[in-house]
């Protein structure tokens, strides 16, 4: 698999995943140090998903996501320091400090938001796909969903409309196996969530979400076809989150052994092995990159720290669009 990738792409994938890992770790530290409050859902362990998907997207494509979306927002182009500042509720945040951890937005980068109602983003994604169809535009919309969202009624409604009208929407399930603290197998009648597509006669597949070198070509193949022949697709990405549902979750519903099993297939470790084997990086170089990235995310936090709070008049702004 790895031999099909240009060396610079392998290096770029690694550095991006490393950045997301260190970014979320820095966020975790800031949260633990009570620099900010509220909910905070980390993407640690799932980095190969957003890196592999983003590499298959263009700037014109839209992305919409659920509440675990710090890294997805950055991947779509939002400067990481604006995501950090949003967490700190600062006016320099990508949603002016009015969204927070779950509600990163960027119109300029076509990131249609992180959303906090499980599955609620699915109909919105179909609306974005509908608009592309309505205007005859070639771009696609990627709708990130968690595994537990697959039991929400409006996700079924959304998939039915997308399939009926052949709208260019990739429903992408990040199956990290747990809806908050509930093992998806305890709440779901089927073993593979991608099978839900059968109900809508929709194309579907699964991919190993711990390996960016599988995620990227798989998603690119789906989207290349979708751009030529608009139709929705349901992709189940098998992944795992190392941290709790949110920072405050100790994760008592799963064993340490289970977490370790996934950490042995860690997306960074896997790609680091490839880089070393292909002599694209030495252990010393990997460590040096790590130091650079750690400095970058510290700088993001410093920007967030030093950014001003918004004026109190902001409370009343943006309720209405002023004509």
């Amino acid at each position: 698999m790895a031999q099909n990738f240009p060396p610079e792409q392998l290096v770029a994938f690694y550095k991006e995943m490393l950045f997301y890992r260190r970014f979320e770790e820095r966020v975790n530290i800031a949260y633990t140090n009570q620099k900010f409050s509220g909910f905070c859902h980390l993407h640690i362990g799932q980095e190969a998903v957003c890196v592999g998907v983003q590499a298959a997207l263009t700037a014109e494509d839209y992305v919409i996501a659920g509440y675990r979306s710090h890294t997805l927002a950055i991947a779509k182009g939002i400067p990481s320091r604006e995501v950090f500042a949003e967490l700190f509720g600062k006016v320099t945040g990508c949603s002016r400090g009015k969204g927070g951890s779950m509600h990163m937005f960027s119109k300029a980068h076509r990131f249609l938001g992180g959303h906090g109602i499980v599955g609620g983003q699915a109909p919105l994604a179909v609306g974005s796909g509908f608009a592309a169809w309505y205007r005859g535009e070639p771009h696609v919309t990627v709708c990130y969903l968690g595994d537990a969202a697959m039991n929400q009624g409006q996700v079924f409604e959304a998939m039915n409309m997308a399939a009926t009208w052949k709208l260019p929407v990739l429903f992408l399930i990040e199956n990290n196996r747990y809806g908050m603290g509930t093992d998806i197998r305890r709440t779901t009648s089927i073993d593979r969530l991608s099978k839900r597509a059968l109900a809508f006669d929709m194309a579907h597949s699964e991919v190993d979400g711990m390996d960016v070198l599988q995620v990227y070509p798989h998603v690119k193949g789906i989207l290349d076809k979708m751009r030529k022949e608009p139709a929705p697709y349901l992709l189940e990405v098998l992944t795992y989150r190392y941290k709790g549902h949110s920072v405050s979750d100790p994760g008592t519903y799963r064993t340490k052994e289970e977490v370790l099993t996934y950490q042995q297939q860690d997306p960074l470790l896997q790609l680091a092995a490839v880089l070393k084997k292909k002599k694209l990086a030495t252990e010393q170089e990997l460590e040096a990159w790590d130091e650079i990235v750690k400095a970058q995310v510290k700088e993001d936090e410093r920007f967030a720290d030093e950014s001003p709070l918004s004026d109190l008049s902001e409370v009343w702004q943006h309720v209405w669009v002023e004509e």
Partner: protein
Amino acid sequence: MALLTFREALGQAMDEEMARDPDIFLMGEEVAQYDGAYKVSKGLLQKYGPRRVIDAPISEGGFAGLGIGAAMVGLKPIIEMMTWNFGIQALDQIINHAAKMHYMSGGQFSVPIVFRGPNGAAHMLGAQHSQSLEAVLTHIPGLKVVSVSTPADGKGLLKAAIRDPNPVIFLESEMMYGMKGEVPESADFLIPLGVGDRKREGTHVTVIAWGRVVHKALAACEQLAAEGIEVDLIDPRTLVPLDEALIFESVRKTHRVVIVEESWPFASVGSQLADRIQSVCFDDLDAPVERVCQEPVPVPYAEHLEERALPSVERILHTVKKVCYRTE
């Protein structure tokens, strides 16, 4: 002016706006091939084709959300709810998404969308098809709410709602679709949101009503006039934003207020109006503000029970006389 039914006036508003702006599309159950469950969209499929007039599956939450997503990326959807009772299925999308998108995104995304359909009771439709839901919808910051009572208001306000850059809830009534009225024919006829209307001029008592009960209030006004009580009948037309200036001006003139609403009394639009009036016009009042509401029960099916549960001309008459201290 042309004499049009309510459904024709609303259809004309959509037709004129769709002709003006190619980003506008209409989606809902039965809006296309069936010409609309209540024929409001009659002829639009023929004129604008299946790309712009779209029959939706029975998935109110789904197609409401589709409209919101499409609006976020620049289209201007009109989403028809066959009735607002079904619109309850879409409240997650309307409340959690449409109402908050502009705010949560720090002003980046807007949702220029109209959700329209009949609100309130018709005739013997039972509890699940007869609800007046304006209190639920007006409660949510970020939603404009319009409730119309005449074909002309319907046309002028629907056109303004479609042009508004915010999500607008547009409340109609099954019982009024066949009602006729004079409607201005100009395509530029717009009624701005937030401007109320005096449906009848009087000096003795202010009656505030919106939507279908305006007509019950008008009937009561006729009888009251015969007894020497002249009512100042205010129809706010838009509940959010509300034309408070018109209401306060009327109260300062008459010193007595009756609020008539088809919805339930607890935490309603009427209770909000009563609060604002007592707060701003306390010294102007010569009697407590009174309200005529639907009884706090699910709407019953049987005709005589339904009539008793809903606001009636008789109850309006009685309550107006009460605030005038004219009851026997």
